[in-house]
Each structure stands twice: as C-alpha cells, then as structure tokens.
C-alpha cells in the first residue's frame, strides 16, 4: 500500500505499538511499513504480529531515516516492530548536537 507522506502526518503500526510522525519526505507515494506490514492511519485498526526479519524495536524520541536522509520520521511511541520503506530498513539518525546556549 503506497501513501503520500506529508510533514506532520502521523501513522501507526498495524502490528505493534509503534507510532510515527513524518518530519520530511520526498514527493510521491511511498510504501512505509512497520514490522513488515504497511503502516496505517492513526484511527485505523489492524492486527497481527511484527515480522522479526524487519528488525526493531522502535524507540520513542528517535528519528529514523532512509539512506540519503530524504525521508525522516520521528518515533512518537515505541513498539516491537522495525520501520522500513518497502523492504529496506530505516536507520536511526544520529542524536542532535547539543545547543551552545539557550
């Protein structure tokens, strides 16, 4: 299932507790998955078990990116499944540098 990903839009895993918000994404439709299953709108319901082949767990507060970092998701709730675009796993983005002052 391919979906347009707009900054600020939210998705949840069909097979675990994971929730994400899109920070940025390339135009077009994308096959965003968690635990191997297409992610769904926050209000949809679904069921099943995450496929361990897709890694995981997701960690709240971490940002997940594809190889060229054109896609970036923020994990707003952690879960057992791993995030992927199609069958390509997303990687954890390096933590933010600390600010020099506030």
């Amino acid at each position, binding site marked *: 299932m391919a979906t347009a990903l*707009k*900054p*600020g839009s939210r998705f949840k895993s069909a097979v675990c507790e994971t929730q994400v*918000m*899109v*920070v*940025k994404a390339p135009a077009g439709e994308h096959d965003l998955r968690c635990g191997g299953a297409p992610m769904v709108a926050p209000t949809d319901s679904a069921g099943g078990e995450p496929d361990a082949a897709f890694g995981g767990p997701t*960690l*709240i*507060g971490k940002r997940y990116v594809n190889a060229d970092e054109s896609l*970036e998701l*923020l994990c*707003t709730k952690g879960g057992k499944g791993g995030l992927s675009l199609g069958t390509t796993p997303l990687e954890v983005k390096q*933590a*933010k*540098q*600390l*600010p*020099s*002052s*506030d």
Partner: protein
Amino acid sequence: MSAPRDAAAPGAAYRDALLASLGVAASAPAPVPDEHPALACAASGLMALSGQADGPPLMCPVPLATLADGALAALATLAPQADFADLRGARLLGERAALTGLRRQGARSAGGACRLLDAADGAFALSLARDDDWSLLPAWLEDDAADWDRVARLVRTRHRDELVARGRLLGLAVAPGVDAPHERTAWFELPRGDAHFAMKPARPPRVVDLSSLWAGPLCTQLLQRCGAEVIKCESTTRPDGARQGPAAFFDLLNAGKRSVALELHTPRGRAQLRELLLRADIVIEASRPRALRQMGIEAEALLRENAGLTWVSLTGYGRAEPQAQWIAYGDDAGVAAGLSEILYRASGARVFVGDAIADPLTGLHAALAAWASHRAGGGRLLALALRDVARHVAQFDRPRDDEALRARQREWTACVAGLEAGLPPARAARGTAAALGADTTRVLQGWGIAC
C-alpha cells in the same frame, strides 16, 4: 501606610522555608544580604534584562533576586565552610548576560533562541536552540516555515494547547504562558529516599556531573565551592554544547573541575560511566530519563548498588510520564513558571523576565538539595524541574491579585528611580576550564577503573 518591613524579610523567610522543606532545623542560619527587593532586582541585572529593547527596564513584582539570595543563604547554612565570599545569589541571575553582553529584547529572549508568540487563544514560548530544531517546523506547523516572522504569523490562528502538545510530541521546547498557581507547589520531588535530611558529618563528596549548559554546571560549581571534588563527564562525540559558546562563561562555571570524556556510543564507554557513577557520592544529570535508560544507566538501579549516592535529576517538567518526554530551556521554563504572565499582569508588556531565568535558579536549588542529601547520608533520588523551581520562586511572595501586583510594581519601581538598572559586575573565572577529556586517564586510574 504600614510600617516599613524588614527589607530582607522575604529572603530570610525563603531560606527558612527551603530548609524546612528539607526537614532541616538550623540553629544558626546564614545571613541574607540586607537589601530591599527592589534594589536587589535592579542590581542583579534582572531589571535590565526585562522589557522591550527600546523601552525602559521593567521591575519584576516578585522578589526573584532576593529569593535567590535566600537560596544561597540556605546552602551556606548547611555548608558554613563554603567559599562564597565573591558570591551573591541575586547576582548569579544576570551573570551570563554581564559576561557575554546580552541585552533585553522584549518578546525575544536575551540569548536570542526563544520567542514569546501569540496563538489564537494565548501566549506561549518556543525555543529553537539547536539548528536541527528548525527542521521540525514543517512537521509541527504543516507548513514550510523557515523564519520567525512566518512562524509568528502561522501560530496566530492556531490553538495554543494544540501547538504546545504537538510541539512537545516532536521534542520542541514549547511552553504555555500561564500564571503561577497561588497555592504553593513543591520545588523538588523525592522519588526515592528519606524525606528527613538529618545532618551528619560527611567527607567532601565526589561529584560526577553529566549535565551541560548552565543549571547543572552552576550547581556543581557551587558544590565545588562547598568543598566537593567535581568530575565533569562528557561524551567524546556530544560534549557540552557550551564549549562552543563564550569561553569566559564556560570558564566561569567549569574552571577547576576535572574533565573526563568517554565514548558513550560504545559498550566500553558506557561500562566506564557506570563504574564512575558507582564510585560517586553525588551525580548531577540533566537528561531525559529515557536517554540514560537507552544507555543502560538507571538512577534507581545505581542507588541500590551505591547506597550512599545522591542522584539529582534535572528536567524541564519532572520525571513522571508524559512530562518526562518534554524538554525545556531556561527561558521557556520561566514562561511556563508564570513569570512572564506575572510581569504582563503588572505592566501590560509580554516580555521575558531575565536571561534564561530558570537556569540559575535551578542551579542554586539543585546545589542545596544535593548538599543537604549528601550531608544526610545520601540514598536519595532528587528530581528538580526547571519549571517547578522557577514557579516555586514566583509563588513565594506573589501579591494575590492584579491590583496588588501593579501597586507593588509601582512602589518598587519608585524605590529605584534615579538608579541605573545595569548588569552586575561579572565574577572573574578562577582559571581556564579543562580541555575536553584532559583528565580522563588520571581520573579513571585514580578511581580504579580500567581505561
């Protein structure tokens, strides 16, 4: 006209209230400087740092500066041997601005990273302290906002609570401009340990400081002045960001501390950190609890293994969920504490009060809590939140209604008429801060930890 009251009365009352909240009965409390709260406010730099850039400095109608003196006096009461000769609690508030040339900028924070903005139904503060924070704005606003003007325009039609909730979900430091509740709230929480801080003789503590920026480093500097040995422990890849800021300020807070840098992204570095924490008497950290948990560091578990440990957790809003996920800096936490709302009710101006005001206030209170717990045998997890500390100070001597707030502001402003509301003279740093990791090998070897 009532009789003139004792000028330093709120400061002494605050000292005694802080000690009482720790269950300490002090027979010989340290004195609070004898200065009218209005004069203390003007001399602290707080007044010069509040107001529009092209307008007059504004008097804060709650005695923040005097209460900061009271907090330092509480610490001096418990550490009579402390080297505080060049310190005034009140003067800590404007110290960074004095050293680095910051000025009041109205609804823009003195440091520049935080703004007071108007949503459709109320004011709120947003700090964008990290460059990376800007990349979150499209997700926050669902718009390609790339500058403050556009952000200000967009939020004007949105609901404040939704902006705040969504911003927090994204990890932005965003805070509603609410008033401080009239009923007093606590300045610390004690998730673990004895609430009665009975003083015992104690050797000078070993402090491991994992914090950064201002509040935590000020806390450990004050502990250092009380006789503690302080190890400033940083990640080799994510050191204290203040190292990139003005050197004079970094040196002021960190000179004399030993610098340990560990590879915290590796299992070895994390194991070394654990060993350091197991040998410490006091740990000061300012991370979200989950960040340390994800590194395998759990305060509660370390307290079980290291029985005399005092663990001080500094957060924006506390360790409970969901607030444990919210971040805060000194300016937005001051807004969340009610300070900007109080000044607005008194003066009609929507501006910041001071420079990152919650930072120095929290540093002072954290040092008091840490020292008190150590002197009482440790075994405590103390949680201080920037918002809660600043709110506690805001509430302590707040006139009940808006009319009384305005009256006090008029009266206190008249007290300082003709005086220049400038910045305090900056303390001089006692040397240069150690370079990142300068003492890693020496400290690890000295503490019996494999390098």
